[in-house]
């Protein structure tokens, strides 16, 4: 007997699966949006540019600066 890729269950649960999918997309959008807003609220970029494992000469304090 051939393997049926589409089971009747898939049809029956289509709405539910779509709903779960949309909820997940919404969740990702919320987390992404929150991240953007929270990071931008930090103000000056130097505050959050320090830990990207790349040398960033522009954030190294100059002599005389504290």
């Amino acid at each position, binding site marked *: 007997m051939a393997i049926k890729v589409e089971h009747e*269950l898939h049809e029956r649960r289509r709405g539910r699966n779509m709903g779960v999918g949309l909820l997940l997309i919404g969740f990702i959008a919320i987390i992404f*949006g929150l991240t953007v807003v929270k990071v931008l609220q930090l103000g000056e970029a130097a505050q959050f540019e320090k830990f990207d494992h790349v040398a960033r000469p522009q954030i190294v304090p100059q002599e005389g600066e504290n």
Partner: protein
Amino acid sequence: MSDISIQDTEYEANMGDYFALLKPRVMSLVVFTALVGLLVAPVPVHPFIGFVGILCIAVGAGASGALNMWWDADIDQLMKRTAGRPIPAGRVTAGEALAIGLALSGFAIVLLALATNFLAAFLLAFTIFFYAVIYSMWLKRATPQNIVIGGAAGAFPPMIGWAVATGGVSIESVLMFALIFMWTPPHFWALALFVKSDYGNAGVPMLTETHGRDATRKHVIIYTLLLVPVALGLGLTSIGGPVYMAVAVLMNAWFLKGAYDIYRRDDAACEADNHAVEIAVFKVSLYYLFAHFGALLIEAALRQNGIGGW
């Protein structure tokens, strides 16, 4: 057997059934009052953070609704009003409702803490606990005053909205809480006086059935009298103003007159006009809450433009 067979004879719950677990109508009131609490606060909130805050409060309220339906499934099936809910109607299992309630509670509380602050998240957690445990599990079946204390759960949202913005609790947010808290009993008992309920069959004590309708009428007028100073007092705080005060005076006079009319009636009069007065007062109670919170919103808008307030 070459095919997977999974319960293909049973009803498959759809998204609408799960959504119904969250009591969408209650949620809409929660969203409205929480939004007012957030918008009237003196601290501006980034619109997206405000949106996430309100979403978390709404989801938290919905989660407590699902927990309530899980716990009350046995009595829901005995009452006509609730027999069509997803669990008693057999569309969702009690276990699913419990899982959804717990998962959404956790999601809403954690996200609110991360997006806003810990006080707001704590208040939301307490609200869910209060509604699911203190009200549903404990008081609802134990005392006819259930509606009074249970009303606290519905009164928290503006306080949480305020906490989202300010990170604190203040006299304004406490009075917004008190306004809904004191409003709930007369609102609900006006309804109980004209709706033929079957709470008795389900063993849930309701004032109209345990103490009679005359005692309920007395309770309506007493709680309305206690509500008036709270509503007017809110107008004297920093979020009040002349517009709010005018609305409050008008609505309180209207509600108080209705409560007094109810108090003066007896069962014969109620039967004679088919509960016309009780129905009218119930409607007034709905306008009452909407008008107060709407007026707070107007005051906030006026303040932003340099007018309004005291």
